[in-house]
């Protein structure tokens, strides 16, 4: 993992300063954000936090990928993959 990357499903994803998690995943061509809480594929959609379709688990907290700034070292997984 480089200094400017986070982990998506244990895979390093590079990002630029100020970029959202959603933007970094899109740049890495990740469009399917994994199973959501109902088991259907999550995805980037509205870009403004309204649709809740890009919900992911960021260091264990459910967050909208479109609103959450990428930071180095974050561990991010699909919302429905959490063992809760």
């Amino acid at each position, binding site marked *: 993992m480089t200094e400017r990357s986070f982990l998506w499903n244990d895979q390093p994803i590079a990002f630029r300063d100020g970029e959202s998690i959603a933007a970094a995943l899109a740049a890495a061509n990740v469009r399917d954000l994994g199973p959501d809480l109902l088991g259907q594929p999550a995805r980037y959609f509205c870009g403004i936090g309204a*649709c809740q379709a890009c919900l992911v688990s960021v260091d264990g907290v459910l967050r909208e990928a479109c609103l959450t700034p990428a930071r180095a070292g974050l561990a991010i997984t699909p919302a429905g993959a959490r063992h809760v």
Partner: protein
Amino acid sequence: MFDRDVVVVGGGPAGIAAATALSQRGFDVELVDQRAQLGGAIYRQPIAGARPVKQSRFAARRWQHLHAAIQHAAVTYRFSSVFVGVDGHGNTLIEDRNQGRLVSVRARAVVIAVGAVEKVIPRPGWDLPGVVTAGGLQVMMKETGTAPQGRVLLAGNGPLLIAVAAQMAALGNAPVAIIESGNPMAINGNGLGLLPHAELLADALGYLSGIVRHRISWRRGTELIALDRAGSQLAAELRHADGRRETLLIDQVALHDGIRSNNFGLPADQAGTTTMPFITRAGDCREALGAIASQLDGMRAAADVAAYLSRKPNDAAASLDGIARQRAAQAVLATMFAPIAGPPRLTALPDETIVCRCERRRLQDLKLLLGGTGALSGREIKHNGRFTMGACQGRFCADNSARIACELNPGSPLVASDLTGSRWPVRPLPISALLGDEPAHHDQSARDQ
């Protein structure tokens, strides 16, 4: 008794205009935004080093003025923070994500300026990965300065599709086509109605010239009727005005069928009391008329709040003429872009079409629910059908569910807010944010400029 004169929610044109004007009048103003910068969706700022998207010089100038004005005002900011609602005791609740906790502010007035959301008509497959909204695609371009990758199709209705196409082309990846259900070019002189609206006309002509220059296929009178997976791509099924079908293979599709107020669950406008704040909505979340009107309505809201706080006559009138002009301009655009096949009939969609994505509720579920005992209220449709019950709290299905109910029961006055109601939290709230000793009361955690 009170911690703040005013909390302004939302850092778009309405919120910035309201916060600036109230601060200039000497009130103590806290501006809350869910992101880490001002701008909202319409003026989303590029990250450092990113190339700004193509926009008209009018829009650029509007942002420069808004931004410069608030820079000179003594506004306190609380970024990365989501408005949760106003509770029964009159507390303004904010999920401060920098602190990971709920903050409770006693404000004398609250200006809610949380903008618009896009309308998206359901189509089979609209819930698949790779399907985004045109506005969603656009804000990401604004943020990153790069066009979306691969073969991208834009589909739906309205002028935003042309703007996004032109911006994509300018960033080096023009869309495969624009699928537009209206036909604004064919309409006998209706476009002339835009002539008095110089800024909108300049925007429109600028984007249109981009479409022409990049030879983007703008298929008017055409509808996107279904999406399906096709290997790692998406198959988009189109229906042309003459009934002919066509399938395009694409990587992403951006949908857009207009905008509407993001007013879901919000507290109603109310006069203040000794315990409850004065509340007013401002900008697109009051009436979705776009950036120019939002800025004016932010001024209007500031005048209303100032009149309440200082018990002086209201000077909001100056904004109202300008808002009326924008309302007229939006009406012209709506006429120009009216779908040539008439408003879409949602009940004609395939029964298995997802209407409520969060709860995976389909058209057939709603038909079954409403097929029995006749007219149900919005609350009953929500409770018994689970439509609008999910995490988006109706933002992408309340309109469509209400429309379907009205198609099935002509004459029904049902509208989206009958399903969604008014209650907090207006967005899902992590329980962890509530686990301090008590909801964090107002403190110095908001950042003074």
